[in-house]
Every structure is written in structure tokens, then in C-alpha cells.
């Protein structure tokens, strides 16, 4: 299927869902105040472009997300390299990693609240924690699976361990690390919005969403905010996929050829 046909089909699908939601609401199948017509929700979402209060909230969410993700990438890659080059360290930490990794990050929201004085600090720490694992795991596996012949080739020209790590192991692991970053980006967005919903004190997209429910409640604004969160997540993913394809063309071409 061509790219264009894919886009057209996707658009038809979205339009279909919007039309059904509109009909359900207008026909009175659902309470109009609980489920406002899709057209109203989309209009509110569009109006957010001119709403400084909402845009500030989005900025606050993105700020914590970007900071946490960047920190996690640097730390997780460094730890991954340290663990894979030091076998005893790897063995010593394996149990710890396997125990810490499955803890749902949202379960740590109370801990983050009591551990940090500012909301931003708590958010960044939580994103950092949850984003570390996919990147660390991908780094570890990618470094373990570097082609031994590629490493041996460099050794055969008299290069030492550090050069092999820098010039062979890291470049060949990079596409898998990038995949880890992309997974972490999605996880991080969920975590930061969840934190804001629970303890955001009105900060960020999550904070905005929880405020729309106070008083009489504004389902139209709440749904419009949720659409923004969804679109942000989708855009981030599309952007990172595009970056990966560009930076790691050698990898994409090879894996597609062998698939």
C-alpha cells in the first residue's frame, strides 16, 4: 500500500469516528453535557491555540518530559555501557534491575511528592525513573549483540578496547538505543500527565484536565485537552521515527532487505 493511500484511509477512519461521536451526542443517545458533540470538542481544541493558560500548561508538561527524557538517555546509556563492559557489575546488578524495572512508575507518585519540594522536580524525577528502563534494557541487549566479527576487525588493525567500544559497539547499538528512547518517550508522557492529574496543583496538561472537572465540570474542555495530549503523543512518536530513519538509514535499509 502506498503512503498516500495509507494517509487517505487513516483520515477516513478518523472522520468516521468523529461522525459517530457527533451523531451519538446530537441524537440524544448520550447526555449532551457528559458527552458534548464532537464538533464542539474539536472547536474547543482549536481554540486552545489562542489560550495562553492552556499553552502554558502544555509547555510545563513538555518541559518536565524533555528534561526527564534527556537525563534518562544520558544516564541509562552510560550505565548500560558500564554494565556491559564490567561483567561482575552486570551480574551484581541484574537482580536489582529485574526488581526495579516492573514497578509501575505511577505507583511512585506518592514517593515523588514527598521526596521533592517542587512539582517540576517531582515530575522530572518520575519521567527520568520510568524512562531509564527501556533505554537501559535496549542498550544492554544491543551492546551484548554487537557482531563479534565487527569488533574483531577493528582489533585486527591493532585498536584497543576503548576504540572498539567507541567506533564499533556504540554505533552498531545506536539504532536499538534510539528505539528505547522512543518507547521511553511514550512512557514518559503517560507518567508526567498522570502525576499532574493526581498532584499537579493545576500545573501542566494533567493539572488543566483535573481543573475542568471541578465545580460544574466542563466535559468539552476536558475532552479537548485529552485530544491535545493524544495528538502530542502521536506527533512525538512520528517525529522520533522520522529522526531514526534519517540517522540510521544504514540500519533500516539492511533490516528491510533481510525481512
Amino acid at each position: 500500500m502506498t503512503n498516500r493511500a495509507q494517509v487517505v484511509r487513516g483520515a477516513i477512519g478518523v472522520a468516521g469516528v468523529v461522525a459517530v461521536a457527533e451523531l451519538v451526542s446530537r441524537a440524544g443517545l448520550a447526555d449532551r453535557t457528559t458527552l458534548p458533540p464532537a464538533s464542539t470538542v474539536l472547536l474547543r481544541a482549536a481554540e486552545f491555540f489562542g489560550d495562553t493558560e492552556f499553552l502554558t500548561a502544555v509547555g510545563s508538561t513538555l518541559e518536565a518530559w524533555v528534561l526527564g527524557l534527556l537525563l534518562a538517555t544520558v544516564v541509562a546509556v552510560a550505565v548500560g555501557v558500564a554494565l556491559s563492559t564490567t561483567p561482575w557489575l552486570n551480574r551484581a546488578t541484574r537482580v536489582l534491575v529485574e526488581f526495579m524495572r516492573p514497578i509501575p512508575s505511577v505507583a511512585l507518585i506518592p514517593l515523588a511528592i514527598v521526596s521533592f519540594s517542587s512539582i517540576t522536580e517531582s515530575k522530572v524525577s518520575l519521567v527520568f525513573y520510568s524512562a531509564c528502563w527501556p533505554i537501559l534494557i535496549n542498550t544492554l541487549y544491543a551492546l551484548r549483540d554487537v557482531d563479534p566479527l565487527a569488533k574483531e576487525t577493528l582489533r585486527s588493525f591493532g585498536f584497543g578496547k576503548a576504540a572498539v567500544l567507541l567506533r564499533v559497539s556504540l554505533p552498531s547499538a545506536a539504532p536499538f538505543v534510539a528505539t528505547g528512547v522512543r518507547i521511553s518517550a511514550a512512557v514518559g508522557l503517560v507518567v508526567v500527565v498522570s502525576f499532574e492529574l493526581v498532584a499537579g496543583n493545576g500545573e501542566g496538561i494533567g493539572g488543566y484536565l483535573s481543573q475542568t472537572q471541578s465545580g460544574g465540570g466542563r466535559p468539552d474542555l476536558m475532552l479537548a485537552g485529552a485530544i491535545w495530549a493524544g495528538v502530542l503523543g502521536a506527533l512525538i512518536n512520528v517525529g522520533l521515527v522520522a529522526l531514526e530513519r534519517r540517522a540510521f538509514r544504514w540500519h533500516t535499509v539492511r533490516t528491510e532487505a533481510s525481512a
Partner: protein
Amino acid sequence: MVVRVLEVEDLTHAYGDAPPVLSSIDLEVKPGELVSIVGPSGCGKSTLLRCIAGLQAPTEGRVRLDGKPVERVPDNLAVVFQDYSRSLFPWMSVRDNVALPLRRRGMNRAQRHENALKALESVGLPDAAAKYPWQLSGGMQQRVSIARALAYGPEFLIMDEPFGSVDAQTREDLEDLLLRVRGNSGMTILLVTHDIDESVYVGDRVVVLSKGPARVRADLSVGLPTVRDQITTRELPEFVHLRAEVGRLVRGREAADEPKS
């Protein structure tokens, strides 16, 4: 006194507690010689090369290059591996692949690039520099590996079944490229192959290994003229005779000598 560039003495190697794959191998290579090592597949040829190249320490025995014991990979040695698609780095252009080892020669960027381009020209790939290895055919990729080894300027070249993964026509082209390169550079070359014809066609000497564990079964000198040609050399009586002899040695003398019914 005979000058020897490479001396292998009583080399034995076993992986862990497994029975040895190499047993008391003795081998001498003189400067400028091209020695083919041939043997049945899985006989330990690659292990022998890895020990000689200093990529692996043998369980017993000594390897000396220019009189010095080989403990790590010597500076004047390069290796060409069979699997070019894994040995070339896909994230680097052809030029950068060839230029990378030159960092060990203390060259600056411009010098590395210049030498890489020269080496690519010498293997007949003057236009491939900006491409990536995976954009080239298998034969061209192996030319790039050879160019990378040549650019490094080694005195001693080790080739591990270098033409084992290309088609027959490309294989002949690469064999002739090797002979030409060797004529120009005067390098000492050790080439491992499982192709009997190839071992005779390119070699000054053919060393035949036996299987399980590998021992030197025979060391034959090749009395063919220096200038060789894929058609005429292969019809010389010396070629035909040698390839039959090597074939018998590789397959096991007893089996080959039995009269066919």
C-alpha cells in the same frame, strides 16, 4: 642464513577442555611469499590464522614475526575476513571504512582520505568512495575490505577464505586482483582457502592441513610461472598435477587412491 618473516613452532590449540583443534603445527614463511593453507572445512584453519594474527593466544607453541614473538596484533599485519558484510561497518561510507585503520598510523584527516582513495583506485573502485558498503555488490564489498587492508600498508597480510562468499566469476577476478596487488607491493601473504584450485593458482606454496586435530600434512611448492592467467595457467601440466595431488591430500590419501569400480 634463511630470512624468515613468519615462524610458527609447535603450535597447539584447544578450546577449553575440548580435544585440540591444532596439533604441533610448524610453518615458516619467507618474505614476499604467498602461502596457501588448504584443508577440509572445520579443520581449524581459522583458529590457526587467529593465533598467527595475535587475535588469540594459542594453548602451546610460539608464533614469531620478524623474530619477535606475537603477543598482540602486530602493527605490520592486516587481516581480510571472509564475511565482508559483517567486517565492513555499515554506518560508514566506503571511504571512511578504508580510512579508519589509518588512525593507527598517526595520519591527519586529509592524509587518511587521500590514502583511502588511492587504495580504492588500486582495487578498481575509484568511484565507490562516497557510497555505503551495503550499496555495493558482494565482490565490490570484498574489494573494499582488500583496499582497507592495503591502505594500512602492512608487510604481512592474512586472508581468511577471502573469496568464499562470492560467485565464481568474481572469485577469479579477485584472485587476479590479489596476484596483481601482491606483485606491486611485495607483501608476504598467508591465504586460507578450502578451494583446492585456488590454493594452487594463487600460491607459491601450498600447505595442506589434515583434520581433527589439524596437522601439517604436506608442504608443496608451486612451480608455476610468476605471471598467471585464469585460462592458460590452469591448463599447464604442473597445475593439473598439483591440484590432483592437493585434492588427494585434502580428501585423505586412502580414499582417493582406492581404484574406482
